[in-house]
């Protein structure tokens, strides 16, 4: 991680979701019983239980062996799904911003949670059950994103979608006649990029953003649109207002 990004990431941290998480023993309350000091419930003793957990006082009163169960404390695991396509590298600025965000999330995960696991792509590595899943992409694909996002959210303790776009992709300028070349294929498109065409593009982009955000919200997750910029700018202007990060 480059120094500028590290300096910016140092000022923020990744908030953990309220839903119970899975993970190694750590600082965050897990969804199962554990060895933390927070009492959870009693249950009947079964052979093999830790004798230190037997509630001897209750045995004195009731002659029944009960075991005190305490809240499990876990360090949440984070699955990070990036974007390996050419579209995320379509401009130098967007490529750099992508690396900054990925590095920062990895940093926060390592520092504040139980580690991060990079999912190379959706489906190739099975995601960790009940982990917090973060997906950084531009989500510029033609098919409906909702099924993909539902699949991504399946079994997760929570999801977080970061849609990273280049400034030109958010607000293209009027450039007259252009040939647009698909960065991931042979597609070419001649068009006159005038005010009307830009307006129509913005409308279609807004629909796409809304679909991604709606899918994220319906899975109980969070969503942020990030305009590629310097790390501090992206964290403060885009991730912070959406609750993706919080001041440390």
């Amino acid at each position, binding site marked *: 991680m480059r120094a500028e990004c590290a300096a910016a990431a140092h000022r923020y941290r990744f908030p953990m979701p309220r839903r119970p998480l899975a993970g190694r023993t750590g600082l965050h309350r897990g969804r199962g019983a554990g060895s933390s000091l927070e009492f959870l419930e009693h249950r009947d003793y079964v052979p093999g239980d830790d004798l230190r957990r037997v509630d001897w006082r209750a045995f004195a009163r009731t002659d029944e062996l009960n075991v005190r169960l305490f809240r499990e404390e876990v360090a949440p695991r984070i699955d990070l799904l990036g974007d390996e396509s*050419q*579209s*995320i590298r*379509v401009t130098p600025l967007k490529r750099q911003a992508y690396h900054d965000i990925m590095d920062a999330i990895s940093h926060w995960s390592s520092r504040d949670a139980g580690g991060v696991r990079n999912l190379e792509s959706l489906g190739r590595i099975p995601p960790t059950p009940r982990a917090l899943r973060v997906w950084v992409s*531009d989500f*510029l694909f*033609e098919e409906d994103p909702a099924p993909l996002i539902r699949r991504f959210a399946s079994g997760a303790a929570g999801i977080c979608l970061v849609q990273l776009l*280049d400034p030109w*992709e958010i607000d293209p300028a009027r*450039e*007259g*006649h*252009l*040939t*647009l*070349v*698909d*960065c*991931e294929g042979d*597609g070419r*498109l*001649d*068009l*006159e*990029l005038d005010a009307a*065409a830009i307006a*129509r*593009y913005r409308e*279609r*982009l807004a629909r*796409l953003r809304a679909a991604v955000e709606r899918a994220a919200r319906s899975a109980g997750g969070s969503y942020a649109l990030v305009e590629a910029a310097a790390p501090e700018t992206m964290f403060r202007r885009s991730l912070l207002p959406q609750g993706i990060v919080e001041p440390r």
Partner: protein
Amino acid sequence: MGFLSPLGLLALLAVPAIILLHLFRRRLRERRVAGLFLFAADRLAADAGRRRAPLRSTPSLWLESLAALLLALAIAGLTFGAESRLPHLVLVLDDSASMGAAHGGSSTVERAREAAMERLEALPSGATATVILTGPRPAVAAGPRAPLPFAREAVARWKPERPSHDFLPALHLGRELAADGGRLLFLTDRRFARCPPGTELRAFGRAAANAALLSARRSGGRVHVGLAAYGGLPFESRLRVRGSERPIVLEPGVTQSLSFDDPAPGEPLLLEIADDALAIDNSATLLPVPARIVGFCAQVDAETQALLRIPQIVRAMRDVVLVSEGSRAHLLLTATPGAIEPGRVELLLTPLPAGGERDDWIGPFLIERRHPLLDGVTLEGVVWGAGRVDLPGLPLLLAGEVALLSEEEGPRYRLNLDPSRTNLPASPDWPILFSNLCEEARRRMPGAEEINARLGEPLRYRLGAHDRADAIEWRLPDGGVERNRGEGIATLDPRGPGIHRLLQGDRELASFSVHFVDGRESDLTGAEEMGIPSETPVRSVDFDGGGGIETQILALLLLLVVVADWHLLGRGA
């Protein structure tokens, strides 16, 4: 800086073509994007034709335009300061009619043309030539320093029909144009001893006997023909007039005159003699000459008219009638000056001084003989009584310091004459003077001055008050059209014999017949085939055939530019 082939500059048209292609090109500026599908609905319709886009100043545009410019310069044969290195041939072509003589198979002009073409063909590409036609005013038919195709075209068009003239003006012009090291070649039909230094002369004539019409005129119901033959022996020929032939025998060097009744008054008359070595002098068409009646009005008292013998003189004059109204007169004799009307000649008898101061002059008289009014006037034995007055205007006739006749604008001629104290009306000079006045008035009448003209004389038509000079054009015998350039008078210097028509729109104003009459051109006895090489050696020319260093540099630059453009386009793709 110069161009070996200026026509190559037409390749510069490629520059606007390139700009046009860039205006409508579909190869637009490219941008790589991730969400191409978001723009798909705005795709430019392919079947709507190409649309003009704002011209963008791209390196490709500039490089391609530069390539077109370099290519045009290379094709045009750009040279820097190399004009003097290039061969320059100045051809002076004898444009006199004797060049048209045909004797022994081919004509003189054909042989000369062939020689001229050979000389032009022998020049290396990139050389230039100038073609000058001789004449009273030399004409540059190609050039100066024209590309060889233009010179060849001018030589091919060469059709010598001019009357005899001096070659020196054309040769001097050619010498000036060849002063940059060029070669001066004079093509004619006979020896010409006065060639300027440095002239190469080649003559292609062949001596031949020839008969010619030397004059042709119809007037007063008669036709007058002058004939002559040139050669060593009596020449037998035939004169054809409207289908009838009469044999004639012409003695060499003797002009024979024939006069006969006009067989077809009011109709064109073709006079022909038998074919011989020179065809142009064998025929003449005489058009019927319309009468140009001069109206004369004498606004002087009867005594003065009697003293001046006006009735007798008018009766003696052909095509002159007396009119009573001054407004209808073309020639007005008056004693009281009035407003001068344009187109009317006025003879004003100057009032004598009241005191009776006058002189009787018996000479010597100072006569302005160059003036047409005094043509033939001698005043021998004339006693001229004149008053002591100062005549305004330009004096034409003086006795001592007293002006007897002067000219003013109009024209108005002032006559200082006491009819009662002169014998002028009884002398031969008075009808001559009166006749000259009538001719002056006739010349100023609207219409053609000379219907049947000799080649070399200008055709003149005086426009009437209702004629529009800008709508008048000459229709030439070869079908060509020449716009009138005169105001008031339409004039034309005919280039060849034949019928010349003057038209105003679709209306024919007049027809002129031009025939060739020139004994010096008809005399072919001096023609010969010979050559005189140039006394001045032609400067050695180190000519590289047009592929000079300039062309190589242009080719190299062109290659660089094309490669750069190809690289740019490849990178853009």
